[in-house]
């Protein structure tokens, strides 16, 4: 029960790299000297946040190596605006890696919507056989905005942009086909905004695929204590931060 090594540390900001003309940015922090599983996340709280915002913010580990901890984030509100304002040398309180990442998979289909690409960057980098991975990426912003090039070309990757309702419907159809085709051949992992996950979930359940979804519920503590981030599962309401964020599709009620 008691996990060792999940310490709360003050990490130095190495770089904040905004993508010009877009609401997204990369944050590089000094590395945590800890192993992680792609799909796990960290809680971040810049030292200059006193009480407002009150909570730390959860972010997927986009990459973690001996040189840096990388976060790929979108500016949506108060907290992410303040992340963007960080400067090299600033301190960020960080705890993690937290939660359950994606399970080990020899072959996998990776479905990502928008910022949901973040954990798959790490997954593709770490996978011993990237050629056994297939990745389908739906996005609204131009592709250049995303760390698309960080995903090895060995991965069978395909990006498709949705700017209209119609394109979104086409993408949903593409998701449906991919899932039905892949079901039985390997695991299917998905990460993205809630509406995207709902669609994926439906097809995963229908096709009886071995699917896993990563949820982005609101979190206060990240350590399983506040019971604020619960997801509805077959086992009842459970903490997304500790039992997830990655859940078996069949366990989840979305």
């Amino acid at each position: 029960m008691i996990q060792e090594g999940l310490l709360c540390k003050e990490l130095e900001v190495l770089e904040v790299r905004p993508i010009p003309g877009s609401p997204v940015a990369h944050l590089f922090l000094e590395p945590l000297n800890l192993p992680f599983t792609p799909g796990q996340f960290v809680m971040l709280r810049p030292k200059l946040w006193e009480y407002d915002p009150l909570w730390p913010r959860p972010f997927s580990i986009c990459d973690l190596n001996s040189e840096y901890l990388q976060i790929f984030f979108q500016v949506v509100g108060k907290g992410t605006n303040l992340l963007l304002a960080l400067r090299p040398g600033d301190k960020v309180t960080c705890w993690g890696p937290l939660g359950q990442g994606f399970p080990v998979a020899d072959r996998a289909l990776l479905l990502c919507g928008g910022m949901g690409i973040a954990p798959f960057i790490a997954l593709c980098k770490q996978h011993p056989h990237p050629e056994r991975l297939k990745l389908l990426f739906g996005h609204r912003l131009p592709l250049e905005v995303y760390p698309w090039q960080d995903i090895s070309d060995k991965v069978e990757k395909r990006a498709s942009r949705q700017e209209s309702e119609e394109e979104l419907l086409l993408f949903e159809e593409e998701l449906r086909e991919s899932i039905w085709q892949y079901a039985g051949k390997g695991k299917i992992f998905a990460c993205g905004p809630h509406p995207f996950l709902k669609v994926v979930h439906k097809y995963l359940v229908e096709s009886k695929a071995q699917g896993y979804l990563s949820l982005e519920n609101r979190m206060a503590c990240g350590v399983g204590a506040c019971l604020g981030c619960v997801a509805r599962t077959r086992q009842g309401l459970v903490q997304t931060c500790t039992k997830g964020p990655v859940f078996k599709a069949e366990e989840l009620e979305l």
Partner: protein
Amino acid sequence: MSVDLRVNLSSLNLKNPLLSASGTFGYGLEFAPYGDLKTLGGIIVKGISLKPREGNPPPRIVETPCGMLNAIGLQNIGVEKFLEEKLPLLPEETPVIVNMYAQSGEEFVELARILDKAEKVAALELNISCPNVKKGGVLFGQNPLLAAELTRAVKKVVSKPVMVKLSPNVTDIKEIALAVEEAGADVISLINTLGGMAVDIYRRKPCLKNVFGGLSGPAIKPVALKMVYEVCRVVSVPVVGIGGISKVEDVLEFMLVGASAVQVGTANFMRPDTLFRLVEELPLKMKKLGIKSFQEWIGKLEV
């Protein structure tokens, strides 16, 4: 200068005045990776009921200016599972106080009986102030007669110290405090959360599925401090201060107005090592202020 951090809550002797507030520290174990639980003054666990409870449907939490609303609805694993699976893993060196929730007086008494028998439970905290449940909860805490009756009933079947936790959502908290003291409460803790609400204008809906929630965090500290001060002036049992505490200065403020100990709640979410850091920082701050022991500090506000 050496500093003595010990304080007493009735027959309960604490090595320092820093307790976790119920519902913000899980069953304690969640925080073990971030510090040594043995260093804490005491651990107050999530509210426990006779039977497991699923709590309210999500969304259950929302951030507010310098605070948060929660409507967890007392999700917990039930007393049986708690005693079997959680309690044995907690360190012997730190008193474990169990926060109790029930929907009726009879249930409270039954729960209290069970917990009183559990050797490792150091004391009970009677939660008569939860605003997030339909039955029980704050209704007991808003009526001095009901509050007293419940306290008396629990005290009758229990040998361990009983701490009664008050709600701030009342016209006169002194009245409730006096009623539970008279009824035998060994310790009084306050405050629980203030009733509150948030709405989402884009969806035209309440942010919380439960509509209402309880407000906690630094935002409520001034309200908590006043109520603790007022209660300390009228009761003679020890008082435990709660509400927005996140810094050593806050701890010393609550004790200066009369609290014998404090509970740290929402600040545990700000960073998971908050309580452990406070345990380390408190003696340093006391040295700076020239405070040797809490005898010379508790209630020593000059008005």
